[in-house]
């Protein structure tokens, strides 16, 4: 899944797709936290708590990211990152 996420990050041009890719990567990390904390000896809750924070942070990141996309769209009327690479409009 991390691989897929990286693939998406490196290939896709649409900003929303890039956000998808980031979410997928974060999810892969979360899954690993939950898995390792379960397979620890004895199982602990702390990994799950870390996933808590991770999910919360990812939610915030998605909110800000989407707002950024909106602003970019409003200013440039495109969300193609190829065309967003110029700082001066």
């Amino acid at each position, binding site marked *: *899944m991390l691989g897929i996420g990286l693939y998406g990050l490196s290939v896709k041009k649409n900003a929303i797709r890039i956000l*998808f890719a980031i979410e997928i990567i974060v*999810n892969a990390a979360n899954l690993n936290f939950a898995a390792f904390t379960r397979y620890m000896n004895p199982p602990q809750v702390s990994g799950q708590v870390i996933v808590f924070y991770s999910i*919360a942070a990812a939610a915030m990141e998605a909110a800000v990211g989407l*707002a950024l996309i*909106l*602003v970019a769209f409003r200013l440039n009327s495109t969300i193609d990152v190829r065309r967003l690479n110029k700082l001066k409009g």
Partner: protein
Amino acid sequence: MVFCQLGGGCELPLISIPPDLTFIVLAAVTIIGSIMALQAKELIYGAVALAVSFIGIAGFFVFLDAPYLAMLQIAIYVGAIVVLILFTIMLVRREATDELTDRPERGEGAVGVWLAGLIAVAISGVAALAGPNLPAEPQPASLPISDLGPTLALQYPIPLIILALLMSAALLGAMALAKLEK
């Protein structure tokens, strides 16, 4: 075959789904969902596939004895973030879907696949090396949900405070960004 005792003395064969099968199904759902999310032609379908992938991950959490985490995943990711994504897609939609030519150019596609393959091989290599060291069978102990709260509040109070600040900052930042300039 395991039999369970139920009220009235009747016996019901316990439906025991082998864990491997559950794992394979969940992994398939998750991975296909995430590939679809990135490759679907319509962004809306991409978002739906992303939701499916998130639900697959929630299934993994259940599988890993973290049901509260699974519910959190569904409520926050599928319930909130996907709605936000859908809404944004619809806000920017008309112009955005004009460029359905979101296909990667040749070199980039190859680089992407190569990167993904490299990561996958590396991770499975590490897993294969470390595999024998991991306990094959997890401890049958249960992780009660009521442990979450104390751990949250007692072991990690500082991140909680930081999270409050982060959330306020993110919310206000996002709103300030999305606000109309006057």
